């Protein structure tokens, strides 16, 4: 499998798996109270573990795909290289952060009691609070890089910038609608970049 095909598969399959897992398998919702979330994760541990592994696995696949795109932009040089470079570093940090969050949530499913589970979930939620900000900055820079490098359709760059700005605002706005828009924007960006890559590969 060539690198282009791998990147596009990571982005497309990662998006599909993430949305399927978080909307249909993961037993809790971010709008619920921390206590309810903990109880839901601890009640059906098999379902919760499947949701966590697939959900976070999908997100990690998507970020690794975007990381590949930004690294290619940097390695090629040109007008988008400097933007791709910063996006690359931030995506690496996000991958590590996502893996740590997934591990903590898996710890919640195996917690001996509600208090221990709640403690772990609060730590995970705290870690999650700045994820959109970092992801938003990375996506915006990736969009600027695409705009200047012209390695994708300009519309893809615009999607990246819009989704990025929404994600930057998320931690400060504390709005459920905006949270969903940020997540959907991230998914749309991954899908459009993945499809563009796949077409280029073909």
């Amino acid at each position, binding site marked *: 499998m060539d690198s282009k095909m791998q990147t596009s598969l990571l982005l497309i399959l990662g998006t599909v798996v993430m949305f399927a897992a978080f909307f249909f398998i993961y037993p809790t919702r971010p709008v619920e109270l921390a206590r309810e979330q903990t109880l839901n994760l601890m009640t059906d541990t098999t379902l919760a573990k499947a949701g966590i592994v697939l959900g976070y696995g999908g997100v990690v696949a998507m970020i690794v795909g975007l990381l590949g795109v930004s690294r290619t932009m940097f390695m090629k040089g040109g007008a988008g*290289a*400097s933007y791709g*470079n910063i996006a690359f570093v931030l995506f690496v940090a996000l991958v590590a*952060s996502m893996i740590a969050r997934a591990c903590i949530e898996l710890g919640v499913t195996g917690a001996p009691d509600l208090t221990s589970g709640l403690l772990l979930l609060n*730590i995970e939620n*705290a870690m999650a609070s700045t994820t959109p900000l970092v992801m938003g900055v990375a996506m915006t820079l990736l969009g600027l890089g695409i705009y200047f490098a012209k390695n994708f359709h300009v519309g893809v760059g615009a999607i990246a910038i819009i989704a990025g700005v929404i994600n930057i605002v998320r931690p400060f706005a504390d709005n459920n609608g905006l949270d969903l828009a940020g997540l959907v924007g991230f998914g749309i960006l991954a899908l459009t970049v993945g499809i563009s890559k796949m077409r280029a590969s073909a």
Partner: protein
Amino acid sequence: MDTKRQTGLLLVLGTIISMVGWIAFYPADPTDAAAVWATKLIADPDMAVTGMVLGFGGTVALLIGLFNIARRITMGNGAGSSYANVSTILILATITLLVVVAGFEFTVAGAESVQAVGPVVGVAYAMNSTMPLVLGLAVIALGVGIALEKTYQIKNLPIVALLGVISGVILVASVIAENTDWQGIGWPVLMLTTLALGVLRLRASD
């Protein structure tokens, strides 16, 4: 914008912005005990968030600048490449730590009381305590790499490399000796190093 100019700007502006954020806005001190630190953040959340955005943002920016310099030396396969390679990985780890700690601190600043976020305060404080160790080792490795490469010299003297090694040693020693006061020397020396590296990078002819 070319990468050389970007690296220089990241180092210079990142250093200035982080110093403004930590010194002028951030309401707590690195020497504060965990409970005192959390109380100060909760007491003035707006100021704390502004300080954190500038402080963490600036620090991440200057670390990306250092990452660019370390990677450039690594790619050059010269005498200092093996040291710079270690530095590259440790800087990436430090950036990840910063991203995670920023999340903890945002949560603490938005909490109603220290008791409500007790575990988060504990974990954030623990991670904050060990971060200088990783960053210190990264800067020592980078300083040695720069010295061996004989680059970023001021009047043919490896002043910047030496400053980097000194700041790294102080930061590492502060963690081992559990003396946060030493960080009051380590951080400014590190800032001076990054500022000098940024200026030299901007003035470089290649």
